């Protein structure tokens, strides 16, 4: 079982020694059950740090945001920033390192094991509790969560309220870290990998289109899926085609000739394009943290869409995003044995 006190002590000593600028971790939220990401720069505030199954967010995102902010504020503090990373978070950090988004020495990774159980799915839990409000969720051995409601604590089999992505997780333990807390349990495999995608692929093509068309029609275009994705770090996204990163030397022609790939209207065609472009851009980069799906206010199954190409990466090209920061990326490499028969 993970020793949160030791985690806090480690974070505190890092800040006290001044060896990191800040620690990105989780703390209890006032908004609801799920933890909230916290960037802690004050050693005394490390006591707020928590780690339990409500710590769902992928904190690699905040490394990307931190970099943007440092560029903006022209900070010259060269010390690394520490980040608490679950298995999926650490894979995301590995992809960012692989893409040279920031150097390895600029980040101190505090790996945390999400044990045998992964994190909780708030929607599933709410259903399971049938209207009762969960006050806290804790790890309870390797197969259960201990859940507190007004009526007291109860143990629930983790598999019943665990996030889908955790059920299919192929490497639950951090693949990259400077320090790890918790038991190393890398194999979880409660469900077969890509089970959901494979199930959907069995559907008739016309039905699949009917399914996705309905999902695209419901999209609000709030861009939460893009904003929460650590891999969506582009300064300029295809959806913001009028407003893009403008530098002092950007010419009027460059601004005027910008291609407007996607209209802002939440029409099916535009929304389909938006989600498909994102899926393509994530090919071989998506670490299946499923944050896009979790944050979607209208519940669009984005994980299902984005893991389709991950399945292809893994099964066809034997490529596992976030496993090796020194490997070439999926689309910047090829093999002679790559599929060729689909080409005429």
């Amino acid at each position, binding site marked *: 079982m993970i020793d949160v006190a030791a985690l806090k002590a480690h974070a505190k000593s890092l800040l006290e020694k001044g060896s990191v600028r800040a620690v990105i971790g989780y703390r209890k939220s006032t908004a609801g059950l799920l933890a909230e990401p916290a960037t802690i720069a004050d050693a005394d505030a490390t006591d707020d740090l928590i780690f339990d199954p409500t710590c769902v967010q992928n904190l690699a995102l905040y490394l990307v945001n931190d970099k943007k902010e440092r560029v903006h504020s022209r900070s010259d503090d060269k010390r690394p920033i520490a980040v608490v990373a679950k298995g999926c978070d650490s894979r995301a950090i590995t992809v960012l390192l692989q893409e040279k988004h920031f150097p390895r020495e600029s980040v101190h990774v505090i790996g945390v094991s999400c044990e045998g159980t992964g994190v909780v799915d708030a929607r599933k839990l709410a259903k399971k509790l049938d209207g009762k409000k969960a006050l806290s969720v804790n790890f309870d051995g390797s197969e259960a969560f201990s859940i507190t409601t007004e009526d007291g604590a109860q143990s629930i089999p983790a598999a019943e309220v665990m996030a889908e992505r955790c059920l299919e997780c192929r490497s639950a333990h951090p693949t990259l870290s400077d320090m790890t807390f918790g038991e190393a349990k890398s194999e979880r495999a409660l469900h077969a990998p890509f089970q959901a*995608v494979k199930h*959907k*692929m069995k559907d008739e*093509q*016309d*039905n*699949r*289109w*009917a*399914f*996705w*068309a309905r999902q695209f029609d419901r999209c609000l275009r709030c861009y939460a899926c893009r904003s929460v994705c650590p891999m969506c770090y582009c300064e300029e996204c*295809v959806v913001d085609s009028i407003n893009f990163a403008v530098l002092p030397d950007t010419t009027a022609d460059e601004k005027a000739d910008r291609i407007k*790939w*996607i*209209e802002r209207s939440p*029409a099916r*065609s*535009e929304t*389909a*394009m938006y989600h*498909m*472009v994102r*899926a*393509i851009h994530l*090919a071989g980069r998506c670490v299946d943290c499923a944050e896009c799906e979790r944050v979607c206010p209208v519940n669009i199954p984005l994980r299902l*869409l984005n893991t*389709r*190409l991950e399945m*292809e*990466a893994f099964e*066809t*090209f034997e490529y596992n995003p976030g496993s090796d920061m020194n490997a070439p990326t*999926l*689309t*910047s*490499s*090829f093999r*002679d044995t*790559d*599929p*060729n028969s*689909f*080409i*005429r």
Partner: protein
Amino acid sequence: MANAVETAKDETGFEPKIVAFLCKWCSSAGSDLAGVSRLQYPSNAVPITIMCSGSMSPMFVLSAFNKGADGVLVSGCHPGDCHYLKGNFFARRKIYLVQKLLQFVGLENDRFRMSWVSAAEGVKFAGVVDEFVKDIKKLGPQTRLKAKR
């Protein structure tokens, strides 16, 4: 591209609009050869020359469908013949992924195609287009990803 897609529609029946992204060094030359050889093949394909199939952005494919293409063809040099040595190998991987995604979302399989056509293969190019047009005619107009305009 919006205008390129607006090719004339045959009054008597459905004439597919195909956007063909052809690499400058092989497939584009192959299509020219088909033309100068006076080969009979359908005129439904609007050619857009790109420097290399490896420079083909998935955005172009999606945008063509968004703007109303009934089919999209990407064509490059045969493996080993790339002017830039390995551009077409990168293309193969990328286009494979795009195809899988389009199919998963539910676009009809026959609407997106890749081919290897060398500068000498005018006949092959004509055949690829001919076959593509026939397959798309069976499907009818592409409505799934097309923007309402």
